[in-house]
């Protein structure tokens, strides 16, 4: 009624006609609820695995809740479920408003919402079941990968549709970041997830060894960039000035740091692979581009903090701003620390340790967590047309969360550096001071305890927030469609004379998106293509042969159990590592590894040269009860491996799939593969029985032992052959 009146009046007075429309708040509310639900789930799993690190029995000998399987559940839960839903919540709220338009399609919004929740539920079922590709933050198997791609395309259509029908000439800086996010995540996800299915729930990466590692960390690093950073910067540009009621400090700075950030970020992936078998030139590119990232990253922090000029008195009063200020400073810290960790000498200390875990959590808890909380405290009262139920509780949340971060991060810094230095320490006689890996583990157990307390505090804060926001919602009444009005606009097709190029670009979403895609692609292409086509980058080793069928089955069990979450298979060329583990790893050793299993964290020792190190029965007893063989070990027991049968029905498909990917199994081998498997298994089982371990040859433990005994032995053959 009121709307029509206004409309008529306007016409009467000759004011340019205002278009009436409404914002879709329902979709925002749904994503907000999902954010909170998945926050609790993801963080709870995090606390559980943190405790499992000092109480390995906490897996209750139950395979579905064992560390190796639910650690990916934690990372996926927090990144894609908690942060993912928060991104969609923030984008669906802010995009409509800075475009002065309702979302392009309510149906697409709905499909996007439910599709994303379906993906998360799939992950929550599949990861504990051991269905994983093993590639970090891309663990989900191929059917879910396709689902992710489809839902992402729907999101992209919905977003670009909304931008196209906007009632605002220019796209606001937040929208630039959203566009970069949508196009880049699509590219990253698709390229990294190219895999050949073996069966409905199993696939092998098309890339092998070094190349797989490069693609994976190009993806992994840029998932941080374009899933955890750019959308959050976009949301910061909306919610921070809104909450502070201040203008954005510098438009020019926005332009410079946006383009520099998306161009440079993509190159930095190889810094995850310093001192590995990746070619030196690629490693160096990773280092220098990481250093050049400092300023573009800080551009966002500076613009955010300087926007608060003249509003610092509000920061004292307003929990929303408090959360945001800590978020932005945590962002600044993490983006300075990251480049420092990319320097060779720092990386030599920090890689494989808890320092990296700490670094990640400054970003995840501080930047993503606190900015999300700030947004929620700001949004929910507005969605429900009321004010926050309790400021006191919000302040409590702020302090318990901040303390939680400090506990977590400090403990992990200490643990990482202490352990790394112990790994590297030589005695005066020139041998390792702490040759037993477990000594170094035991040293940092107290830090693991403190870390879990920090994590639990952070989670407590989240629960307090949910209670507070629930009460807030009860106070108000939800408005699913928020009425708005804006004049229709006409956007000139051509660039006006004297109009700045960027101003023009801000009117052209498609041109903008294409340009952003090109800028993003350059770095990836320059690093990835030469690694694939120039042979000298991966020198072959003639004694390296494909895995036997039994070893292959064992390798798939290794992947299923997530052994690579705690054990690396990449010995760096340092004397401290070659003394401890054996010859350093060479690119040519991994040419048949689909996927690569280098790992990124050494909670336990490296396994690259594990083959022939211990007798079969040692492995048997160790898997049955690690502490019987290695007192004080924090590895969980794997009793189910001696009960479950090897999946020999799948052998043929596995051999065929790998042959298609270039592994030189002779044609017809797939038919006799199981005979070969049986022979090898019988031999191992006989050896185990001889040594007092009564185990049948068709059990999974036999395959896993076969794989472990093969690890890293190919080049030992060469050596003795040469002699």
């Amino acid at each position, binding site marked *: 009624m009121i709307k029509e009146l206004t409309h008529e009046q306007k016409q009467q007075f000759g004011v340019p006609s205002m278009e009436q429309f409404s914002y879709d708040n329902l979709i925002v509310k749904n994503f907000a609820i999902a954010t909170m639900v998945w926050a609790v789930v993801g963080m709870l799993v995090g606390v559980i695995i943190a405790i499992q690190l000092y109480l390995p029995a906490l897996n209750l000998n139950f395979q579905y809740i064992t560390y190796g399987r639910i650690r990916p559940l934690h990372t996926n839960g927090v990144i894609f479920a908690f942060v993912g839903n928060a991104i969609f919540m923030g984008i669906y709220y*802010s995009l409509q408003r*800075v475009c002065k338009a309702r979302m392009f399609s309510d149906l697409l919004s709905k499909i996007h919402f439910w599709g994303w929740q379906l993906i998360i539920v799939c992950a929550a079922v599949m990861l504990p079941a051991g269905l994983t590709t093993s590639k970090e933050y891309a663990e989900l198997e191929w059917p879910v990968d396709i689902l992710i791609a489809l839902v992402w395309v729907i999101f992209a259509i919905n977003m670009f549709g909304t931008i196209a029908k906007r009632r605002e000439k220019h796209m*606001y800086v*937040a929208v630039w970041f959203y566009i970069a996010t949508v196009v880049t995540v699509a590219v990253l996800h698709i390229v990294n997830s190219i895999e050949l299915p073996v069966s409905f729930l199993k696939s092998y990466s098309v890339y092998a060894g070094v190349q797989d590692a490069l693609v994976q960390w190009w993806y992994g690093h840029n998932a941080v960039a374009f899933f955890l950073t750019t959308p959050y910067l976009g949301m910061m540009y909306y919610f921070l000035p809104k909450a502070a009621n201040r*203008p*954005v*400090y*510098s*438009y*020019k*700075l926005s332009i410079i740091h946006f383009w520099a950030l998306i161009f440079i970020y993509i190159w930095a992936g190889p810094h995850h692979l310093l*001192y590995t078998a990746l070619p*030196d*030139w690629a490693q160096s590119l990773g280092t*220098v581009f990481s*250093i*050049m*990232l400092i*300023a*573009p990253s*800080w*551009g966002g*922090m*500076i613009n955010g903090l*300087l926007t608060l000029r*003249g509003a*610092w*008195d509000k*920061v*004292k009063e307003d929990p929303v701003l408090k959360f945001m*200020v*800590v978020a932005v400073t945590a962002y*600044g810290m993490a983006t*300075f*620390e990251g480049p*420092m960790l990319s320097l060779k000498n720092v990386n030599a200390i920090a890689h494989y340790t808890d320092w990296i875990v700490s670094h990640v959590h400054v970003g995840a808890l501080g930047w993503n967590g606190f900015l999300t909380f700030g947004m929620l405290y700001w949004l929910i009262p507005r969605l429900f047309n009321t004010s926050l139920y309790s400021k006191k509780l919000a302040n409590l949340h702020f302090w318990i969360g*901040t303390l939680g971060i*400090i506990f977590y991060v400090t403990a992990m*810094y*200490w643990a990482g*550096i202490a352990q790394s*230095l112990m790994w*590297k*320490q*030589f*005695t*005066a*006689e020139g*041998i390792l*001071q702490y*040759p*037993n890996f477990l000594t170094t583990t035991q040293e940092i157990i107290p830090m693991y305890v403190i870390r879990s307390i920090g994590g639990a505090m952070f989670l407590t804060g989240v629960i307090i927030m949910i209670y507070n926001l629930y009460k807030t919602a009860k106070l108000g009444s939800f408005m699913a469609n928020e009425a708005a009005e804006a004049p229709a606009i006409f956007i000139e097709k051509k660039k006006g004379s004297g109009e700045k190029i960027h101003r023009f670009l801000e009117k052209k979403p498609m041109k903008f998106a294409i340009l952003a895609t090109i800028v993003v692609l350059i770095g990836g292409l320059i690093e990835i293509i030469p690694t694939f086509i120039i042979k000298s980058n991966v020198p072959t080793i003639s004694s390296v042969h494909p895995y036997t069928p039994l070893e292959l089955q064992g390798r798939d069990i290794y992947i299923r159990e997530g052994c690579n979450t705690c054990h690396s298979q990449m010995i*760096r060329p*340092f004397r401290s590592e*070659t*003394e401890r583990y054996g010859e350093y790893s060479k690119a040519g050793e991994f040419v048949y590894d689909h996927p690569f299993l280098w790992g990124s964290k050494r909670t336990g020792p490296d396994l690259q040269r594990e083959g022939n190190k*211990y*007798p079969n029965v040692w492995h048997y007893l160790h898997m049955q009860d690690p502490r*019987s063989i290695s007192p004080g070990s924090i590895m969980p027991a794997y009793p189910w491996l001696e009960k479950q049968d090897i999946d020999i029905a799948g052998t043929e498909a596995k051999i065929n799939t790998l042959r298609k990917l270039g592994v030189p199994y002779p044609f017809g081998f797939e038919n006799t593969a199981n005979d070969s498997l049986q022979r090898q298994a019988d031999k191992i089982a006989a050896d185990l029985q001889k040594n007092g371990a009564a185990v049948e040859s068709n059990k999974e433990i036999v395959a896993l032992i076969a794989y472990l005994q093969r690890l890293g032995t190919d080049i030992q053959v060469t050596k*003795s052959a040469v002699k």
Partner: protein
Amino acid sequence: MLKNKIKIPNKLIISLFTFTGIFTSNIYAQAKDNSLDTYGQVAGLLVLLGILIMFILILVLGDEKYKDTGIAPKKSAAFAKFKQRLTKAVPIEKESEIILEDDFDGIRELDNTVPPWFNYLFYGTIVFAVVYMLVFHVFNIKPLMLDEYIGELKAAEIQREELIKTGALINENTVTLLVDEASLANGKSAFTTNCVPCHGPAGEGTVGPNLTDDFWIHGGGIKNVFTTIKNGVPAKGMISWSSLLNPKKIQEVSSYVISIHGTNPPNGKAPEGEKYVSTDSTKTGIGKTDSLKTGTTKIDSSKTNKVKTEPVKTDTMKK
């Protein structure tokens, strides 16, 4: 009143960064038995991080609040000038002159210039990147990872030779049996940590052979036992301990193992290998790493296997 107002945000931020301080002190606490070189690097980095963050915070937070209210504290005049030079920000009161026309849902943008220090930082990192690539890949001034590794090995080799020369390093040629209690106690504790999983708590043998009987697969006597422990028997699952135990430790463990001979513990594993009797030097197999079955000694007729010192004549290898 005013002071009180400005305090809170700073306090809050500072407390967030307190951990940098805690962290640094932890490193020094740990530094006792580690090389200061690495500590220097890490600590330096952290201090740098702390200083930089503080700098940024001071810079951005500064004392805008005072400006806002028009009451500038005396001390900050020079600082404000310095800050002005670094950011070239248009003061808040003149903000309306640089506000852009667009209004995005109530959000306006200022046309402040990019802070000069941001540009310096950016250019600085670009220069760093170019120099870095030149140093490592064009002029090859600094070693890439494998050369770095070779250098590390060479340095260790030199150090080792020095130790051997001065007699500080025990090897299979110079090892002697220790019988003093302290050494045997050390040997026992090393045995408990490292050997028990395969040889049993009393050396009675589980996965590995019984160490208390008269029979030895790779030869008894201090030199053989030392060699077996040092080089291992990889084919049978006995790893080489040379990188895990220092020579002194191996000597102690070897001595301890020899000391438990004849203790006849319960559940002793059946004898394996050949009966060993210490006699003369020819029986001591001084193994090379690649001869897996080295050190097997032939049976001799005499009984004792307590060996004190066995002069080694040759580098015997038996197959």
